[in-house]
């Protein structure tokens, strides 16, 4: 996909998402009391915002459809970006591991305590990087867990058992 078709595709997606979200918000707001312009109910502003969001989505769709082919945006061309190199294309491993890491923290914090939650969260998230081995991930997790106990449990007194049922 060349630059301009890719951008066009992105803008179509963006426009559709906005229309969808805006419509959903407006429909949901209808179930609240709308009120009058003089005395607005709780549903008035959310309703107006939903319609506005859907409207912006429609304008974006229309502008994308009417847009002629264009060159890549220029400007200051040689700007170094922080995220230019390395892997390209969808990175399911990275994304999956980061999401799984956050979920692991939530689940383990609720059922197992601070230490397991820290170990699980850091180790799983670390595996999202293609250069980390299991050994790196576990060592990093242990290091962070020690720090977490010192800073959050001992230092700041976070209300979470270290290991549920034991301490």
């Amino acid at each position, binding site marked *: 996909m060349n630059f301009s078709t890719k951008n066009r595709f992105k803008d179509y997606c963006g426009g559709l998402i906005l229309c969808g979200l805006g419509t959903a918000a407006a429909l949901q707001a209808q179930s*609240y009391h709308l009120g009058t312009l*003089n005395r607005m109910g709780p549903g008035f502003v959310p309703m107006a915002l939903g319609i506005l969001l859907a409207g912006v989505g429609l304008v974006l769709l229309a502008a994308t459809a009417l847009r002629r082919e264009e060159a890549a945006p*220029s400007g200051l061309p040689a700007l170094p970006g922080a*995220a230019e190199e390395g892997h390209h294309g969808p990175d399911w491993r990275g994304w999956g591991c980061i999401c799984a890491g956050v979920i692991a923290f939530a689940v383990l914090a609720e059922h197992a305590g601070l230490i397991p939650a820290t170990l699980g969260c850091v180790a799983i998230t670390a595996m999202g990087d293609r250069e980390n081995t299991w050994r790196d991930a576990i060592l990093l997790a242990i290091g962070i867990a020690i720090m977490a106990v010192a800073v959050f449990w001992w230092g700041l007194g976070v209300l979470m058992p270290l290991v549920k049922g034991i301490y």
Partner: protein
Amino acid sequence: MWQSILDLGYGFGLALEPHNLFWCFVGVLAGNLIGVLPGTGALTAISMLLPLTFAMHPVPAILMLAGIFYGSQYGGAIGAILLNLPSHPPHAVTCLDGYPMTRAGKGGTALGLTMIASFFAASFGIIVMIFASPLLVEMAFKFGPAELFSIMLLGLIAGSTMSRGSPLKGIAMTVMGLLLGCVGTDVQTGQQRFTFDLPELADGVELVSIAMGVFGIADFLKHVNRMKHVGNLQPVKFRDMRPSLAEMRQAFWPMVRGTLVGTIFGAMPGTGPTITTFIAYAVEQKISKTPHKFGTGMIAGVAAPEAASHSKTQVDFIPTMSLGIPGDAVMALLLGALLIHGIQPGPRLLSEHPDIFWGLIASFWVGNVLLMVLNVPMIGVWVKLLQVPYRFLFPAAVFFIAIGAYTVNNEIFAVYEVLVFGLLGWLFMALDFPIAPILLGYVLGPMVEENFRRAMLLSRGHFGIFVERPISATILGIIALLLAAQLFFSLRARLRPRQAAAGTLSFQE
């Protein structure tokens, strides 16, 4: 005027109290550290450390948060100059001339000049703040709901259309933020809105969850496996950091001009920090006798944008503190933090909480001095930190975010909230939407709604109230001008694609 100076003395007394001084120091140190780390800027730093401040007294809390903000800006320049790595978009222009200076063996000088320029610009910004805020407050007391609504609208529209990328997309994200601000219990009627029967949402979406989601998790999702590897660096000794007299002379006027650019842009609500540094750089290039030399290590190309970013930072606090209207996402975050502490920034802040206002101003100076003192001996440590690989950094940061979200209310629900906002922010980032306006909309949302409803009640349902009152009408006029200018430039760009592309800067991250 004398009153201001007396008040400032009171502020210094507060800022130098050992307790407050300590948290200011922690703030600038943490901000500097996080700012140096690749991939994290002020927004990430403040979002991550925000939960820590909830247990504190409001004065040290805001001193620390402000310290994180300007500390991270000092830190961001280090990566830009030494590694060509803008850890934060506003520093991208600093790379253009800062990195060539490093390659020419003058990295230390560039850092030293940056520090001097930053300190000078920050001091100037603080002085402007001291004298401009009371004036603005006096005016603000005449504001009714209609004026407040109009000025917030100005902030929102300027914030969404004058940042990088497409103005339309910026507006979309602002509206999205406003909708997120509606979630929870309606203050006037007690109606639950968009809560989907989840009791955790009755108090609205957590500020911390949105901030850490869209500026933390979303960022990691975007950068994982895509970060540049950092090679070996020449060690920078702090003897190298002292610029020669000739270099100082070369840097002086760019520094002054950069400061002025930053001050002007700071006073305009909604102009982002990135656009400010770009303009400061463009101004230098335009008036330089040797414009072709820019990009090869010109001192002016480093001093001006860094000065601009620091004076803007300070001036940005004026509307935030004296009107209660944040100019950009960082300010929205700080305002949100104050609201969590039960302090409503606005015209009454000066009389009701003089300790916060003047303590904050005095702490800016104290913090900036601390940063100067800190950065000279610590530069070696920062350089080492720059080399910490991203693959170790982001898992640790994800953990900090997760536990930070949990500690706000000791609720696991907030952790899931962070994930949802992370995915949402990442999706919109991938579709080239600017995400900072979400936060601005979210923080301003409830205030916009309240003032809009009040104004309409006062006018018995007539929209005329917004144009009949002179101050409000003027502000609406400015908004109309702003939108007209945006439309004009975008139409011109469409009609003459080639010339326009060369003439306007586009701010694609």
